[in-house]
């Protein structure tokens, strides 16, 4: 395929498909401006599994399961599935948790930020600004030699854990035993039929794995080495989502304000200062991790157990976010959002300064 299509054309096509699907997922049942959000969906899964008790956000989002399984199938088919790990897994777990906590203050991940903007929600601009500044901070540490250490080959079984776990969760989603929680109202009660979500997830999983799509790396490479490969995926995604939203009548320009019915529908809040800082945390953590939440999810399907641990950290971070009142809602930021973001930033800064290679 690589001989037929230049890689950049492929990632642009993939971005377009992803953007169109992300817009259509709203038509098919997902909440407004939330056709796709890696963070929110992992949070919903955490809720369904009983890790948190926020009744409005408990549902096994098959899109996430599809991402991992699609990545697994694509990696396997193209002989890129490799069981590996050992690069500071505990630190990655915590980075994943803080990255999630940051995303849940803004109410969106690195994918949902441009997606919200593609629905006209200008809070997306604040978020993207934050991501860019966080990425710049991450680049500063990378240039100074920040390194979480080498991952090495692991026993094959290790790499299979995340895909098998996702199959297990898929079975829970299909058979819905009594211990799986499901929101009857609120954002997680809004979703397409399972088969639609899983197919979209699989398609995006395959495309994202093949093209290495990353919604933090795009900004990072643009700034760090003036490389536009990954960024063209983000841009294609945004433009395709915007055009599709226009076609579907879903675009409403403005800063969606917390406490309004619009905020409740679009699951947004407009605390500009903390939207900026929380996404700064997400951008910084993603850069230190080597990939945004979407990318981590994809990598976990390829046998990367460090990414697997990061995804588990994101699940736990989502649980903390709701249990410890650090997550925002459409009414505004959470009671403990500010301290969570500050702690996360402090953690990342300490890590950034400490985890440096000894040689110059």
């Amino acid at each position, binding site marked *: 395929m690589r001989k037929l299509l230049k890689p950049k054309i492929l990632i642009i096509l993939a971005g377009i498909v992803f953007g169109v699907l992300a817009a259509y997922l709203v038509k098919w049942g997902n909440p407004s401006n939330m056709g796709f959000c890696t963070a929110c969906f992992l949070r919903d899964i955490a809720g369904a599994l009983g890790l948190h008790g926020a009744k409005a956000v408990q549902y096994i989002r098959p899109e996430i399961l599809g991402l991992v399984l699609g990545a697994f199938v694509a990696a396997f088919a193209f002989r*890129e599935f490799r069981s*590996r790990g050992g*690069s500071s897994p505990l630190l990655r777990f915590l980075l994943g948790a803080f990255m999630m906590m940051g995303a849940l203050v803004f109410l969106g991940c690195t994918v949902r930020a441009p997606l919200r903007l593609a629905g006209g929600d200008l809070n997306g601009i604040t978020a993207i600004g934050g991501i860019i500044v966080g990425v710049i901070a991450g680049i500063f540490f990378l240039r100074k030699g920040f*390194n979480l250490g*080498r*991952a090495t080959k692991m026993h094959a079984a290790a790499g299979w854990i995340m895909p098998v776990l996702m199959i297990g969760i898929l079975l829970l989603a299909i058979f819905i035993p009594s211990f799986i929680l499901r929101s009857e109202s609120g954002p997680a009660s809004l979703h397409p039929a399972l088969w639609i979500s899983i197919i979209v997830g699989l398609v995006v999983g395959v495309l994202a794995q093949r093209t290495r799509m*990353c919604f933090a790396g795009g900004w*990072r490479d643009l700034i760090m080495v003036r490389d536009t490969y990954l960024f063209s995926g983000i841009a294609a995604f945004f433009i395709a989502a915007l055009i599709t939203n226009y076609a579907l009548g879903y675009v409403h320009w403005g800063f969606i304000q917390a406490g309004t019915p619009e905020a409740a529908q679009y699951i947004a809040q407009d605390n500009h200062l903390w939207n900026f800082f929380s996404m700064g945390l997400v951008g910084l953590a993603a850069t230190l991790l080597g990939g945004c939440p979407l990318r981590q999810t994809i990598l976990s399907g390829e046998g990367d157990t460090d990414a697997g641990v990061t995804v588990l950290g994101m699940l736990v971070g989502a649980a903390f976010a709701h249990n410890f009142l650090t997550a925002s809602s459409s009414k505004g930021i959470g009671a403990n959002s500010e301290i969570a973001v500050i702690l996360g930033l402090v953690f990342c800064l300490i890590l950034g300064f400490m985890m440096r290679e000894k040689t110059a």
Partner: protein
Amino acid sequence: MIEIDVRGLSCPIPVVKAKKAFEDHPNEPIAVLTESAVSKENVSRLADSRGYSVKVENVKDGFRLLLTPTGRK
């Protein structure tokens, strides 16, 4: 020949190290040892954009990229 081993390093550290090698040793050929298709692609893309020709050798559990400055920018 300057040899850089970026096996097992997270994105974008292979690119960061390659970039540093280009800056520290301009106009010299550089060999980069990597274990993944992704870092092979990323380093190749950087090298190409900096005017290096890229020759990829398959080695055990990875790739050895031979980057040779061509003088073009």
